């Protein structure tokens, strides 16, 4: 299935990309993170186990075991620092 994936703040700068459309054959947010980690380099480093990041699916923060629907808008970003 196809997903639109957005990156924000430090992760957008580190990955050098703000958004992309991806083919995704997994089920959960954890599967998507694993797919991105497999790109190696900065992707593996920033999305490694123990690194702090958040995943939102269709603009709601989800746990890594959440399923991702087809055509979803997924965002990956650092813990928020507003206010």
């Amino acid at each position, binding site marked *: 299935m196809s997903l639109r994936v957005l990156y924000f*703040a430090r992760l957008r700068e580190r990955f050098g990309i703000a958004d992309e459309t991806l083919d995704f054959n997994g089920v959960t947010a954890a599967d998507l993170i694993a797919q991105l980690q497999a790109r190696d380099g900065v992707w593996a480093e920033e999305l490694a186990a123990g690194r702090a990041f958040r995943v*939102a699916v269709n603009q*709601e923060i989800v746990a890594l075991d959440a399923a991702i629907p087809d055509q979803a808008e997924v*965002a990956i970003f650092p813990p*928020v*620092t*507003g*206010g």
Partner: protein
Amino acid sequence: MNAGSIKPGSTKPGAMKVVVQSEAFDLGAEVAAISHTRTDIGAIASFVGLARDSNDGSGVQAMTLEHYPGMTEKALAALVDEACARWTLLDVTVIHRVGRLLPGDPIVLVAVASSHRGEAFAACEFIMDALKTRAPFWKKEETPAGERWVDARASDNTAAARWDAP
């Protein structure tokens, strides 16, 4: 609408304004906008967060706030809905700025109106604590040593967690 059209004792909620903007805001004008059409409000608690000139031991010359357009507004509206479900509130205004800000500039405003102060104080603090951990904003600081993204603070999670149901 004018104050005369509202029956005394009515607790109809106001507009629940949630805005993300680059422009500055005026606390007095926002508070006046909450109360000028009604006479049932007994308390308005407000909080204004400002850009500081230092953080983590170094000077901060400016900061840039980035956000996730679309999700930000939804997340803020969800926080306001939760506050309204938890306390009896007559109106809420949340304004958060984005873009480049200088030390002393206002960043965020939360104003909560209710019949009595207890609910206004509590809901205002709840909304700020929840905003700090759930609204998708990120700060990048300009310091003498260069630019740096602000890291999330564990104390913000602690502050937000104290509102969790026991």
